[in-house]
């Protein structure tokens, strides 16, 4: 069972993942780019809004503030954020599980590259 927490946006999900270790805004963008192999590039406005919302929710906290350069504000995930992330992973697992169960076996058996190609042909 995956609990009742609302689905996270991709941005929030990758921000939280990027903040398992203290990180600043630009670091979050870079980390997300790496994790998604260049697919998801977070815009600065999107990131700023999401960080403020997450601070309000108590899912992340300020880690340090460089007094000389305000550009280097660092954030870190909180225990609450960690729990939320785990919940979301459970929910996503349920999604993928159900998808695998119901979609044709041939599709699931392909490796990642082949699956991607198959989808590309259709789209």
């Amino acid at each position, binding site marked *: 069972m995956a609990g009742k927490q609302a689905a996270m*946006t*991709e*941005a929030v999900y990758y921000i939280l993942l990027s903040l398992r270790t203290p990180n*600043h*805004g*630009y670091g979050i*963008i870079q980390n997300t780019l790496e994790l998604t192999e260049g697919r*998801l*590039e*977070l*815009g*600065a*406005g*999107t990131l*700023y*809004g*999401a960080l*403020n919302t997450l601070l309000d929710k108590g899912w992340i906290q300020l880690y340090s503030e460089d007094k000389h350069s*305000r*550009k*280097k*504000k660092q954030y870190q995930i909180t225990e609450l954020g960690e729990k939320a992330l785990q919940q979301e992973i459970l929910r996503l697992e349920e999604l993928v599980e159900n998808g695998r169960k119901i979609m044709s076996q041939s599709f699931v058996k392909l490796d990642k590259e082949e699956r991607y190609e198959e989808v590309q042909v259709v789209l």
Partner: protein
Amino acid sequence: MRKFRLYYDKDKEEEWLNEMCSKGWSMTKFFLGVYTFEPCSPGKYTYQVDLPDTHGKIRMGDGEKREYIDFVESTGAEYVCSWGFYVIFRKEAEKGTFKLYTDAESKIGLYRRIRLLFLVVGLMEFGLAIGQTANYLHIEEELWDPGINIFLWSCLGVIYLIILVLLVMVIRITRKIHRLKYQK
């Protein structure tokens, strides 16, 4: 080079600034509808017009605004200027794509902020216009001066026209928001 333009639609404004830049003119200043351009190598920058998230407040404090600008600049962009609630940024095209808002949720947030601004300004102007209209209708006969009256009524006409444009913009933005919701 200076150019005078009045934009209600920030997407169109953005388009125009990028088009000017592709012709070798980079925007550096804005004042009361007058855009100042400086020569640049064609297509050097990508421009973005922003109405930053005030986080529930009517207006960003100076500190918050500075912080937001610093934040955006730390991602490789450059602050150009601000006007009222709007802020304009640019980024060198060779440093990569430049989009401030990259998902439907935050784009919806942006358009909601713009819509709210237009609604508030529109309502304020409407209140003003109604009050003035009532006033003019009660001017006493002996105080009528055709010259002054034509002037006053045309001023009022301009205000009603602005209200109409704002209303049209509110409708267009609402449509944009609906389209974004459908995308989600």
